[in-house]
């Protein structure tokens, strides 16, 4: 093809790709055209062409950088949040639908709205403690530990929660604070639970998929409200059984828990670990730490995904389904 025709064609394609929003493809064409013009400058004889193409390349690169660097819209309008809340609560259990909806909002990074929803759910006797724990989890995920502590103190000063409920929250938050090395002692009575053995209830259906039996600490002495005592996992220690760090143990705090599924946030810098923990990987040796006891067990990597927006952008979100606890 004639040199001038080729350059013209490349520039035309670049413009068309740009109009399609395919900026990288457009850039490629401009760069290609630029190279040809530079190489055959004497033949082409148009001194204005190269600077013009260079200018377009510069503008395009700036545009690509701007889009890539601009923070993703982390808070979406309320109508979108409503859809997230109503359509992403995958549960057949009417009684937990609102809670699942609020968890979905948190998963989509809509923390303010999620917090609002969890606060409303605290008026419901059956969901009160669970909602309160999720409020704490939201603050922890946002690294707003002082807000988590402040919230607990507010609950402590008010009389909305029963002493045993307050105690559960205190133990839950205190363990997180201790793990993070934050020297803060929450007000409240020391719990005196004696765990005999974790017992397993019948399997249930949640989120449209079969989940493992819910572990119930029904044998915790002195606890009258046993039926809502689903084990809260505050952190996990996983022994890796493959990869370069075979038999290495890694420990992570749990950022969210929904029934059998616990969610961990893994830093983007821990590339080797992210690679090893692929979806479907069976984790044969896991220590599950609850605020009051430690259990051995097994899990499976349920899903792994990169966080696209918010303060944890770039890190990885890992869902582990608890298969077995003993």
């Amino acid at each position: 093809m004639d040199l001038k025709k080729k350059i013209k064609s490349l520039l035309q394609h670049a413009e068309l790709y740009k109009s399609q929003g395919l900026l990288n493809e457009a850039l490629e064409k401009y760069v290609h055209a630029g190279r040809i013009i530079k190489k055959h400058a004497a033949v082409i004889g148009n001194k204005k062409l190269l600077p013009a193409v260079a200018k377009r390349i510069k503008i395009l690169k700036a545009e690509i950088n701007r889009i890539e660097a601009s923070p993703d819209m982390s808070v979406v309008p309320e109508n979108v949040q409503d859809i997230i809340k109503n359509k992403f609560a995958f549960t057949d259990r009417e009684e937990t639908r609102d809670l699942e909806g609020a968890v979905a909002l948190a998963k989509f990074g809509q923390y303010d709205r999620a917090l609002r929803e969890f606060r409303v759910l605290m008026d419901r006797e059956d969901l009160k403690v669970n909602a309160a724990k999720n409020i704490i989890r939201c603050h922890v995920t946002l690294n707003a530990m002082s807000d988590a502590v402040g919230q607990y103190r507010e609950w402590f000063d008010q009389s909305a929660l029963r002493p045993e409920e307050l105690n559960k929250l205190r133990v839950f938050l205190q363990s997180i604070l201790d793990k993070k090395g934050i020297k803060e002692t929450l007000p409240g009575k020391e719990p005196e639970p004696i765990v005999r053995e974790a017992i397993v209830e019948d399997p249930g259906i949640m989120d449209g998929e079969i989940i493992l039996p819910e572990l119930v600490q029904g044998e915790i002495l002195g606890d009258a409200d046993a039926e809502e005592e689903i084990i809260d996992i505050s952190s996990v220690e996983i022994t890796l059984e493959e990869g370069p760090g075979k038999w290495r143990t890694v420990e992570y705090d749990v950022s969210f828990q929904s029934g059998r599924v616990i969610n961990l946030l893994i830093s983007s810098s821990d590339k080797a670990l992210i690679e090893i923990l692929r979806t479907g990987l069976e984790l044969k040796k896991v220590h599950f730490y609850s605020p009051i006891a430690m259990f051995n067990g097994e899990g499976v990597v349920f899903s792994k995904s990169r966080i696209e927006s918010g303060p944890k952008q770039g890190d990885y979100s890992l869902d582990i389904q608890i298969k077995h606890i003993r």
Partner: protein
Amino acid sequence: MANINLKKREIECKIVYYGPGRCGKTTNLDYIFRHFQKQVTGEMVTTETDGDRTLFFDFLPMGLGKIRGYDVRLQLYTVPGQVKYSATRKMVLREVDGLVFVADSLAVRRQKNVLSLKDLHGNLKEYGLSIFKVPLVMQYNKRDLVEQGIPIMSLTTMERDLNRQLKAPSFPASALRGDGVGDTLKTCIKLTLKSLRKQMGW
């Protein structure tokens, strides 16, 4: 599986438009919203970021009327196409009943199509679904761009790249003009309802 409310006699089906970034998923929904007013039951909700890229999803509710005494409702979603939005794609895909894979006909997007289809396959697998069994329709979009002199792939090439094994119904389309949009959706609805009938034992 579709959300079936026996008490209210309502069936809610979820159809997801999947495909690489900038392939025209939102344009499909936008066309449906503007031209299928009779079936559309609410506003189209979009979550676009800078550069017209979908952040979370687009959502369009539709109604199909009564089938065997059940009020059948459709929810159309798009997923974000950009590679980095993998987590959201997976969340949107959850409990999907029918799929439209929108492929970009531009020759420069050939590899992106294949990668996106592979991504779909992987995500379905994680939900215990097989891409061979889920109601699926292929749409080869942007056919009109050939008129502007942009190199596009032949339908044979696209079939070979994307549909050789799947053998899903496929349609050439121009979502911007509306060509093939209705046929794609109608076929997907048909396949989804067929699958639903099977599940319901009708």
